[in-house]
């Protein structure tokens, strides 16, 4: 077990290292460089200043050297300064992660609350009308473009009905900042993500339940006179949860990398929007850190999923 864990973590670390080289290299291929941007925004700087600044920041060095310098700084915990926000990168990441967790955690819980019953219902009436209905809902949900769903909710509830705010996290004027105000701002992005997630969770739940229904222990329990309710909840559902745990482990990384599109549509200041803004705004330090964190969390999520599986299911042995 420890050996397995060590090798998994080492493997993840290797992927992370390769990713850091790749992302750092790709960043150098982005349009413009930081000094050119600095010059463009300040008329007092001239070409001679540009050369001095490039030397100062080490931008005249070859790429390999720049990568090593950056990696060294990151190891020492110096993540640098964000150009877009004019703040140290660390100070920006904290609130962004918290905002993404709030948004996506809430959406995930709501999604599961709808999808688990739907999946169970479908599996209990396989081939019946409930199954067909859940199947239709799942197909629709996985085929929906999230940004369009968000826009449609915005058109309906913000533009036409005027019930909910169209973006941001809280009102800037008047009684802004209250709990109710925050909840009103959360409603549309959370609904968007929750609706978009129902399909895949319902499908996986249904498949997992049907998979368990075919097992011998179910027939044994039936033969012993187990009530249908007990059969479904105590026997079938508990085992069907195992594959769902894997799915949730993979979702763990996403919680930290944020919902890029939904956050952008609704102006929600989470990690997803941060990644999009920093990449498109040439904010190298911020973009690199945010991308590396997102990658690290995704990798960690899949290791956690395997660990949880091993704990929950005594049949699984890792070596």
């Amino acid at each position, binding site marked *: 077990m420890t050996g397995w864990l060590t090798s998994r973590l080492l493997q993840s670390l290797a992927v992370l290292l390769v990713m850091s080289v790749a992302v750092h290299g790709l960043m150098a291929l982005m349009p413009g460089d930081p000094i050119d941007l600095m010059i463009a925004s300040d008329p007092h700087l001239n070409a001679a200043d540009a050369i001095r600044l490039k030397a100062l920041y080490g931008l005249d060095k070859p790429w390999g050297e720049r990568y090593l310098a950056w990696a060294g700084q990151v190891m020492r915990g110096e993540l640098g300064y964000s150009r877009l926000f004019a703040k140290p990168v660390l100070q920006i990441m904290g609130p962004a992660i918290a905002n993404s967790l709030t948004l996506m955690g809430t959406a995930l819980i709501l999604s599961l609350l709808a999808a688990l019953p739907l999946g169970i219902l479908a599996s209990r009436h396989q081939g019946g009308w409930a199954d067909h209905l859940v199947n239709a809902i799942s197909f629709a949900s996985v085929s929906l473009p999230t940004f369009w769903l968000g826009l449609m909710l915005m058109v309906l509830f913000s533009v036409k009905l005027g019930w909910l705010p169209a973006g941001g996290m809280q009102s800037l004027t008047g009684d802004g900042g209250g709990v109710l105000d925050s909840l009103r701002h959360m409603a549309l992005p959370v609904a968007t993500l929750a609706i978009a997630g129902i399909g895949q969770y319902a499908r996986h739940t249904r498949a997992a339940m049907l998979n368990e229904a075919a097992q011998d222990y179910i027939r044994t329990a039936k033969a012993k006179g187990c009530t249908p309710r007990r059969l479904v909840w105590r026997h079938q559902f508990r085992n069907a949860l195992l594959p769902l745990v894997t799915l949730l482990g993979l979702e763990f990384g*996403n919680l930290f990398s944020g919902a890029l599109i939904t956050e952008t549509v609704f102006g929600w200041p989470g990690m997803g929007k941060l990644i999009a803004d920093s990449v498109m705004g040439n904010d190298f330090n911020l973009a690199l850190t945010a991308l590396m964190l997102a990658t690290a969390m995704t990798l960690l999520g899949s290791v956690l999923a395997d660990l949880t599986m091993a704990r929950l299911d005594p049949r699984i042995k890792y070596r």
Partner: protein
Amino acid sequence: MIKPRDLPALVGAVLLVFLAFATLSAPWLAADPEAMNLAAIHAAPSLSHPLGTDELGRDVAARLLNGGRVSLAVALSTALLAAILGTAIGLVAGYRGGWVDAALMRMTDGVMALPLLPLLIVLAALDPAKLGIGDEARSSEIFMVGRMVVIIALVGWTGAARLVRAQTLSVKTRDYVRAATALGATPGRIMVRHILPNVASPMVVAATLSVGNIILVESALSFLGLGVQPPMASWGNMLTGAMNVIWSAPDQALWPGLAIFVTVLAFNLAGDGLQRALDPRR
């Protein structure tokens, strides 16, 4: 006789034929998608503009059809390229085994574990000038479309690779493969002539099911301003335009999104149907 359970797949297939016909005949069916008419912005639907006009007075129906052409062309080419890449990697990994297999599969796992959308955004934001691509080539439509295809295929081949590898592992110990080996066939010939035909049908299913996702990814990138660039129309960038005028013309957001939804749904239904039709266990 059509069974009720095959009905969704049939609906998907009919929708796809309709979409292909409509988007391919766009130049004859619809007006010029890039012709502006500032005297008639946000016009209501009429005979000359069946779905009205957008914020620059362009015909929405024409942009929808032409945007669909771009989206479908990108999605189908990407699915094909990703399938080819994945099949090649999976075949080699499965047939060679040993360290080649281990290295290729660790690479596949690595790519699979990455956060896809952030990575795609980085790839889409790269400056083609710094990759040594000339000015003229950069501004061509072919380049714009080709770039999307390459970027999405670069991260989208992993599923195919795993599928083909698993299939190859199960096929390569069969007697006819061993017979071919004994007769002195080269590894290349065995992979292409004897193993590839046996992995083809699950690959077709997987590729069809991947098209829907690719359309979603492509339109998301275009929506963020990193895919197909205006004035060329795509469903994604039409929605960007619609979002900018959401308060003055909220209905603009309806059609492009609906088009994406219906197309993705059609591919998913058709792919699901294919999967059931080709599944020997049924």
